[in-house]
């Protein structure tokens, strides 16, 4: 909020706040790791009346990846939103909106009741829309508009579901609800409403149509955020509801989600391959990667959830790096037409390396975080004997390799440098590279995040798998 008042100092302030939040998350992380899941009642009211903040392993991991990505985006943005590239009036709007978004994300991952989740989801959606609109062009504005409508629609569906649940059980707290819930028509209707609202926001096929345009037309750091975190937020809510509130024995529904996820992987992959613009390619890649998350539902086993979560984490890091790299390329060469990359990409070795390393994680090749997630999913699929999932996971990886190498191949041509290039601030290149390296390293430190997932385990019921 302060940053509205102090436009001159806005960058510095942004970075300071970023550092502060990271420190807070680290402290919380230590606390959760040492003491187990934490609950904090704001204003001392406590459930069921007051608003509770709750942190377990799952929210901690989300917060941590959130902190890393957001810190990266903050640093990146100090280079991106400078006078040379953006009109000052626009750039100063970025920081407050950005802090707003970040706050909404943190609040969302800490919320423990379903209405509070609704409020944070709305805050998140509104600030995200405003950030997309920052790019200012006709494309950006129309896709921001579409994005806004989708967001509101999704939220209303969700809210209606919340209303029904509250009416039925008289509480909004996730823990309390999970103790009282029992299958009944009202619950099914509520579940259906909330699920469709959230899936719309998570952009699961066939409700992905709004995503590529919105993600591709936003400014690069914003695209990174949207793909890496914002869609994950609604997935996170969905996961919480699915694992903790809804009766889990609805296997037909799980199958359906799995099939939709599988189609998303294929559709996203094929569409990504067909794109001629880099940012569109990356956006469709997000559609495909989101599909992986839903593959866990038909298996619903311990390894499958962990695999999906691991893909979620590494995708957050890798996709941020990728959008940043795309932003660098766009800034450097003035366009993101893939077929003209031979004059551009090879003169940005750091950016190319960032893109390639992030690509390794997206493809799920070792030793990246994506590989670990894929391994866990594959193992879960084989253990449950669902071979069609094995084939989907494998084919998805090959498709990803195809569209990523379509870009990387241009880094090795020997064309002459395009004449109209602009210098890219070195920290923009390094941020992208460091995040990409983080996505790779995630694979090497895998036991650690996997252990965190077990704290206050939401999927403890199926831990036997």
């Amino acid at each position: 909020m302060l940053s509205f008042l102090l436009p001159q100092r806005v960058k510095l302030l942004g970075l300071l706040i970023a550092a502060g939040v990271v420190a807070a998350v680290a402290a919380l992380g230590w606390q959760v790791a040492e003491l187990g899941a934490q609950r904090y009642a704001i204003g001392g009211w406590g459930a069921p009346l007051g608003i509770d903040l709750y942190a377990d392993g799952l929210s901690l991991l989300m917060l941590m990846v959130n902190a890393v990505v957001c810190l990266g985006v903050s640093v990146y943005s100090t280079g991106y939103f400078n006078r040379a590239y953006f009109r000052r009036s626009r750039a100063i709007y970025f920081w407050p909106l950005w802090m707003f978004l970040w706050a909404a994300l943190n609040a969302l991952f800490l919320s423990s009741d379903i209405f509070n989740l609704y409020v944070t989801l709305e805050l998140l959606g509104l600030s995200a829309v405003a950030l997309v609109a920052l790019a200012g062009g006709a494309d950006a504005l129309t896709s921001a508009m579409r994005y806004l409508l989708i967001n509101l629609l999704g939220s209303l569906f969700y809210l209606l579901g919340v209303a029904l649940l509250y009416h039925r059980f008289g509480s909004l707290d996730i823990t309390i609800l999970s103790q009282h819930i029992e299958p009944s028509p009202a619950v099914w209707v509520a579940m259906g409403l909330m699920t469709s609202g959230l899936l719309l926001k998570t952009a699961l096929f066939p409700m992905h149509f709004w995503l590529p345009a919105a993600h591709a037309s936003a400014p690069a750091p914003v695209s990174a955020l949207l793909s890496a975190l914002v869609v994950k937020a609604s997935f996170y809510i969905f996961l919480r509801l699915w694992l903790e509130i809804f009766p889990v024995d609805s296997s037909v529904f799980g199958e359906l989600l799995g099939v939709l996820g599988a189609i998303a992987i294929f559709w996203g992959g094929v569409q990504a391959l067909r794109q001629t613009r880099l940012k569109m390619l990356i956006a469709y890649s997000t559609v495909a990667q989101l599909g992986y998350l839903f593959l866990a539902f038909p298996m619903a086993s311990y390894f499958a959830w962990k695999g999906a979560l691991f893909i979620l984490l590494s995708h957050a890091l890798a996709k941020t790096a990728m959008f940043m790299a795309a932003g660098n390329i766009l800034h450097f060469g003035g366009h993101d037409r893939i077929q003209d990359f031979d004059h551009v990409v090879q003169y940005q070795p750091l950016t190319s390396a960032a893109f390639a390393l992030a690509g390794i994680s997206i493809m799920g090749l070792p030793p990246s975080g994506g590989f670990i997630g894929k391994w866990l999913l594959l193992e879960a699929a084989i253990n449950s004997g669902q071979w069609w999932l094995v084939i989907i996971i494998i084919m998805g990886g090959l498709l990803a390799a195809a569209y990523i190498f379509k870009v990387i191949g241009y880094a090795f041509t020997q064309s002459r440098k395009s004449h109209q290039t602009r210098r890219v601030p070195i920290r923009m290149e390094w941020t992208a590279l460091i995040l990409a390296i983080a996505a790779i390293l995630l694979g090497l430190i895998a036991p650690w995040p996997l252990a965190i997932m077990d704290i206050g385990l939401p999927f403890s019921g199926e831990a036997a798998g």
Partner: protein
Amino acid sequence: MSLNALLPLLMVLSSLLVGLIIFFLPEERAGIRIALNLAAAVLKLILVGVMSWGVFFYGLEYEFRMPLLHSQELILHADALSILFVTLSTILWLVTTVYAIGYLEDSPHRSRFFGFFSLCVMATVGVAMAGNMITFLLFYELLTLTTYPLIVHRGTEEARRAGRTYLIYTMTGGVLILTGTVWLHAIAGSLDFSYGGFVSDLVDEHRTALIAIFVLLIAGLGVKAALVPFHGWLPQAMIAPAPVSALLHAVAVVKAGAFGIVRVVDDVYGVEVAANLGVTGPLAVLAGVTIIYGSIRALFQDDLKRRLAFSTISQVSYIVLGIAIAGPLATIGGLVHLVHQGVMKITLFFCAGNLAETLGIHKISEMNGVGRRMPWTMTAFTIGAFGMIGVPPLAGFVSKWYLGLGALEVGQEWVIYVLAGSSLLNAAYFLPILYAAWFKLPTDSWPDERAFGSGETAWTLLLPAVITAFLTLAVGLLASMPFSPLHWARFITTLEYLP
């Protein structure tokens, strides 16, 4: 952590660090780059020396472990088999580095090239020292990724096409291995290599699954080992610069595939279990077909490097054949060929590169009388070619001798016919080259001649070829000496058959 655990890690890290540093060196700092490259190569050689001493005389285990997944660890491990492969790649890497320095003089993007070159060696060493399937897979995929930039290094449209073909083949192979590995893990719960395999208890319960996994793994590895019908990428990859082709064929990619097959048959399944499952027979037949097919295709190539490429397809299958025959003597033959083929093929590729660099010769029909213009190069080439044909006492003869004996030992006479036929074909495609080079009259001018002072070519190009030719002679002549490849292969086989 003990020193012994650190040695394997150091092997991998030395090239990794060097590779990363080289990426950031400016193009013109050739001196530092060369020094770093050679220092890392020499360091590796020393480490290998220490480890092979320890493994052989004291039976030490050099092992580095790091947790990677639930119940899965990253294991770098030096056993006798890894030492064999690591020694080969380390020595040949040193030689190839010298060669590459000469070959790429004044060409653009050298930092990038040598950076990936180092990473490629890192991956190869990792493949060699992997102590379980997951580590193997990790480095195997890294190898794919690090060789791609080397293949497309020239940046032409043709190179990019070759790179694309390479990726399509190897990525597909990679996911096959991944599927097989995960499946194996789901069944067996462990993936650690051990002599005699670790799946013998599962045969009764999971017979079909084990056969399916074997097929997946071998098909995936067969892509890199260029087994028919997965060989299509190899001739296309010839577009890469000569040192890369040399490394690809002799040490890195093709060998990693063959080495992987050795690991799967010997240390995952175990020879007996594999034979019991009935999978070694078909594998041997596949290898036999590849040997003959590669040789026949080689006959009809006029492009020198393409002829060598098809020859590689044929020769690498000797290794697979030796393993698949599943007898002690044949295993010795296969393992020793792992080294011998590397040394011989790298000689041939160095020579082919010299001809192309010095005289602009790419085709066999342009080679008339070249022996008089470049006697040293052609002598080295001749030694390599005779080795391939299997003329005693050169390296190739030793391998073929053991393969033949091994086949007789287990009563598979058809292998003898394959060996004989392939040797005839080898002679048929190498001897005309030698005849043309030594006995035909030279044409008036070479396609694209460059002067290199007084010598026939630059010494950095000539020396590696001569060294490896000398090695081809030495490993054949001194095959019965301690620490020769043959001796080491016997040592491994003893461990394998008497666990």
